């Protein structure tokens, strides 16, 4: 049995859920960032899968997924840098990286 699109999509979904769990349930800000990275990479896998198993004319669309993935990697990198800068700034002020503690908007 060969690989099909479904395998890529399921892998992507699973990785997305794992990443989502990490982003939601972890207290450490860095761990949350790691979960976000996992989510982004899961989407990347889905994109590449769509690119590889593309059967839609015109045939040049088989590259769309790949290019999308490169964009996602770039944006992920930039966003990670910004997020880390924010965490450092929060740490300097609050002396903690526990996202549970950052709740000034609480009722």
């Amino acid at each position, binding site marked *: 049995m060969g690989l099909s699109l479904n395998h890529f999509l399921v892998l992507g979904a699973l990785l997305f859920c794992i990443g989502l769990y990490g982003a939601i349930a972890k207290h450490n800000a860095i761990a949350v960032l790691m979960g976000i990275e996992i989510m982004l990479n899961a989407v990347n896998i889905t994109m590449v899968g769509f690119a590889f198993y593309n059967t839609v004319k015109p045939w040049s669309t088989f590259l769309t997924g790949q290019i999308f993935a490169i964009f996602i990697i770039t944006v992920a990198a930039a966003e990670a840098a910004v997020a880390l800068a924010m965490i450092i700034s929060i740490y300097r002020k609050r002396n903690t990286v526990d*996202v549970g503690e950052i709740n000034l908007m609480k009722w």
Partner: protein
Amino acid sequence: MALYEYSWLILLSPIFAFAVILFGTRMWDLATRGRIAAKAAHETEAHVGHDGHGEPDGPDELIHEKGPRGEDVVFEDWEDPKVPQLTMGAKVSGYLSVIIMALACIYSWILLLNTAGLISVAPQLPTQGISLSQISYPWCQNIDATNNCFGLGSYVIAFHLDRLTIPMLVVVTSITLLVQFYSQGYMERSAGYARFFAYLSLFAFSMLTIVFAANFLVIFIGWELVGLSSYLLIGFWFNKKSKPAEDRLSPASASVEAFIVNRVGDVGFIIGIMILFVNTGTFNFSQLPAAVTHMDKTLLTVAMILVFCGAIGKSAQVPLHVWLPPAMEGPTPVSALIHAATMVAAGVYMVGRTWFIFAAADPLAFQVVAWIGGISAIFAAVIALVQTDFKRVLAFSTISQLGYMFVGMGIAAGTAYGPGLGLFHLFTHAFFKALLFLCAGSVLFALHHATHKETQDMRVMGGLGPLMPITAIAWLVGTLSIGGFPFFDSFFSKDNIIAEAYRTGNYGLWAVTLITAGLTSFYMFRAFILAFGGKGGRLGGMWGGTYRGKIYRIAGLEEGNQDKTYLVEMSPEEKEHIKVPHESPLVMTIPLIILMIPSIFAGDWFNFYPYIQAGAPALTVRDVLDDWLTWVGLAVSLIGFTWAFVLYARFEFASVHDYVENRAFLRTAHRILLHKFYVDDLYNWIIKYIVLGLSHIAQAFDTYVVDGIVNGVARLITVLGRDVRHVETGRVQTYMIGFFGGVAVLAILVFALVAFVK
């Protein structure tokens, strides 16, 4: 005609007196009271120790008692607050109201004598009377050409003078004058002297409004005003406490009861008036008898019975009679004026005014009037047989006599008498009942001075005849008048009603009124013997025998239950503190003497019936004596007098009392009558459990449902706010859950839609 056209002055003079007293002389009185009290206290101190007892004799209004630890306690008598001396302002209030009422009275008498043909200072009054003044208030915006309001007549304040009004004017003004004159003596040291005369003038104005009224609106205004005056006057001594041992309410409670029971009757009255107005478009008494012939007869009968409900309440007929005995808590002049002669007669007068409307209805309306009158007459008469309170006997007597008046109104249906039959008895009754009440006041005044206690129980009176001769003779004249003794008042007025009941075929009413006549003479003569009979000297109670002269007092009062009081002979120490009662001062006895004259001779106005209603037969002595019915009525009332004499003057009261107590049937009958057939208790029960029960239910509804909804809305908002705010945790991760959860829901929806659409 000018004589008649200025008769509105009679109406407005008392309200003028009221205004002047209330805003003028009473203010003067209040301002000078402090000065007078100080001066009087100074004078009392100067007389300390001069009364021969070796100790200071304090003013009457202080009560000296032993406190809980045996110490001497002195406090003011709030029962009957007195002032040491009347101020000039108070005295002038009295003079002013007497003078104004005297002028009104003279005018009324001139009107009466002129229209009766005895003097001739002005031309005769036309039969339909004259309209005195008419203030027309078109209360509606759209009035058509004939000044009608959407087809209904406009609302008019109108006064009217005719032959029905004039005897009532004479009655009201004369009795008010005599009562006001009398009150100058009776209320001599009472605290609210000026206020009393203001209220009396207000009452006179209200009663005259009823008398002069030309339509239902004005009569209703007067109706409510007399109810108000009655409330103010009954509750005059508002600080007085109730005496449950003597079955007496406090004046404040009694006045509330009077007003509220009156209002219960007024509900029917208003509904009846409204039915008439809506169906005929007019309130006017002259226009209604013609206008109601176009109405549906059943509806008219219902309306008239409802209108009569107002009279039931105002004139204290069964079942709304319960307010009149407690109303005796007011000062006795008030009882004389309002609850004997005038206000309670307002119901009878109103039925007389609307007699022709009753005549246009089904005969059932008149039968209702007559039977309720008959039932009230006998009901009140049997209760009065056993009452021991002096004024209460008179109160029940009033209810009974008012019943006679309504019987007279009712049975005259179909005869030529018109309203005159009942009105004649109203005319005579006012005089002798006022006389009886003023005598009672005189007795109570004298006894209060002698014993320093408010003694209204007849069982401790006795032997007052030789001590208070004028009062005794006046009471005797009143008793003979009310009992139908030959050629006194009721012989012509009341016995004619009884005879007419037979002649018109109302045999049931004839029997009822005949028995009541016997009972009336019995209890009135009993009251006379118990109070005035026996040998003179000290108070000789009848209990110990006619000529023994023992003095008794009521004991067992502290139990607070009327059934547990008993008589006990006074100890010699107590006898030391009692003075011999003596005749009342002249200012109180002159009205008694004056009232004796109409009590004897008012019945001799034989042309009363044709005076009121043209075509009615006049009384003649020959006809009265020829009629066998008269002799039957006379026999019954003489039996009543004799039986009372035998029972109370020949036998000892003790033996009568024991005879009743030892026989179970008589004892239970006595108890039932003493408790007034338990009607008061029934009404108290109804009010306590049903009326107040309903109000508790309504209150619970208001508190839990209505307020519950209002507060519940607020609480809902509070809960929502307090509990929903927890969603805002301030943590990003929570928001992420929401975000991605929503995405998941949307995804499922899209898949489902796609799957099912395909």
